[in-house]
């Protein structure tokens, strides 16, 4: 797997999302650079998922802009060169009604390289070797999450978004996902993931972003974020208080 970095940094400038009169993202300015994973934290409704969707081009900005290495890329053009190489794993990924291998193959469509070999590599990477012929929807929750990861990675992304990938998993399944995240990040893929689990943020993150009520409350390198938080929100959140 190549480790392309040409799409980064990903920069949000005054990103604003308003839907049905409700402000979901409130003038967020944020730079995501190549390097270790960035972890988004914040209470429910803080805007984590929307931030990821905006980055994927799935939710349009109401105002502000997003640039990839200095360029605006709408993501709606048909020219693949004009598109950011990005992929996402949703919190509850939809499994196509096919085998696990076919789910990966689906994302590989258009790739001319020997696909069977790529599928085997990806299945091995997420620890699903030997399960390729299983119907995807018969896999366990953790296995489905890993298959979704493999499917996203099939697109050879420069940046991979993960929306609460371990939200409903037990510790063993969570560890499996975290190991994959580390392996992927080690290959130079920029991982941006949201989580409710502060321990997970500490274990994985190079930098941490705290969102609260759609606003960027704080963004800093992991040690600094946890040891010397500058904002009240961050202090409360780290202390385990309820941020409302």
């Amino acid at each position: 797997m190549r480790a392309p970095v040409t799409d980064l940094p990903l920069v949000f400038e005054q990103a604003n999302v308003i839907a049905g009169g409700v402000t979901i993202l409130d003038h967020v300015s944020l730079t995501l650079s190549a390097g270790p994973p960035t972890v988004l934290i914040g209470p429910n409704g803080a805007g984590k998922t929307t931030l990821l969707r905006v980055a994927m081009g799935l939710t349009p900005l109401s105002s502000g802009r997003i640039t990839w290495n200095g360029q605006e890329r709408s993501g709606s053009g048909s020219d693949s060169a004009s598109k950011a190489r990005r992929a996402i794993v949703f919190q509850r990924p939809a499994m196509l009604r096919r085998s696990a291998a076919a789910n990966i193959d689906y994302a590989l469509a258009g790739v001319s390289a020997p696909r069977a070999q790529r599928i085997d590599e990806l299945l091995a990477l997420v620890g699903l070797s030997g399960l390729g012929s299983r119907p995807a929807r018969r896999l366990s929750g953790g296995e489905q999450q890993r298959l979704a990861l493999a499917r996203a990675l099939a697109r050879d992304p420069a940046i991979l978004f993960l929306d609460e990938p371990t939200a409903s998993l037990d510790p063993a399944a969570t560890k499996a996902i975290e190991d994959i995240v580390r392996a992927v990040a080690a290959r130079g893929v920029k991982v941006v993931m949201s989580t409710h689990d502060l321990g997970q943020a500490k274990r994985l993150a190079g930098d941490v972003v705290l969102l609260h009520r759609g606003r960027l409350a704080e963004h800093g390198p992991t040690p600094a974020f946890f040891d010397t938080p500058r904002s009240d929100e961050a202090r409360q959140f780290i202390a385990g208080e309820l941020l409302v």
Partner: protein
Amino acid sequence: MAGETSAFQLVLAGDPGLYAIVWLSLVVSLSAVACAALIGVPFGAWLALTRFPGREGIIVVLNALMGLPPVVAGLAIYLLLSRSGPLGSFGLLFTPQAMVIAQTLLVTPIIAALARQTVEDLWAEYRDELAALDVRPFRRVATLVWDARFSLVTALLAGFGRAAAEVGAIIIVGGNIDGFTRTMTTAIALETSKGDLPLAIGLGMVLMAIVIAINALAWGARRAGEHYAG
């Protein structure tokens, strides 16, 4: 009852006339379902994925047409195909083709409406995933239809059930011509009118057996497919 015995005797004796009737019934209804699927599935999928003013109206009309009375469909096709009608020059009235057209008209709304519902439900589940994978619109539709295939089989079966059971449309456009456009249902209507109720009942039981057999086959195929594809 003596009548059932006589119908089953016909079946057992391999009565060629009876087999011709059963065969024509199957060919006409299955052809109509195939044609209706060719029209209804893409149309339903398109309706599921497109938003435009008047769409809700089309859906309401489509759902209403699921209950289109067969005689109305038959009459419409009759007027269309009659020598005095706009398509009269094709000489299709009182042919099996006319029966296929009439049943296609009956079955298409059922398949289209059920396909729309199925595809729309699946679309709600797949939408973000397919958008994130940058899937082009045409492949999107193909993916949804393919992944909904087992539910769509149920829609096709519903269509087949309606086609195989109806008599109102095909007796008008087919004419119930002996050996040419006589199907099980029109034969049942005829035997009833001749007062030969036992034979009519026998034919009805043959029809029921065939419909049940086809449903059982499709059910088995669906179960096997679901097991295989999830």
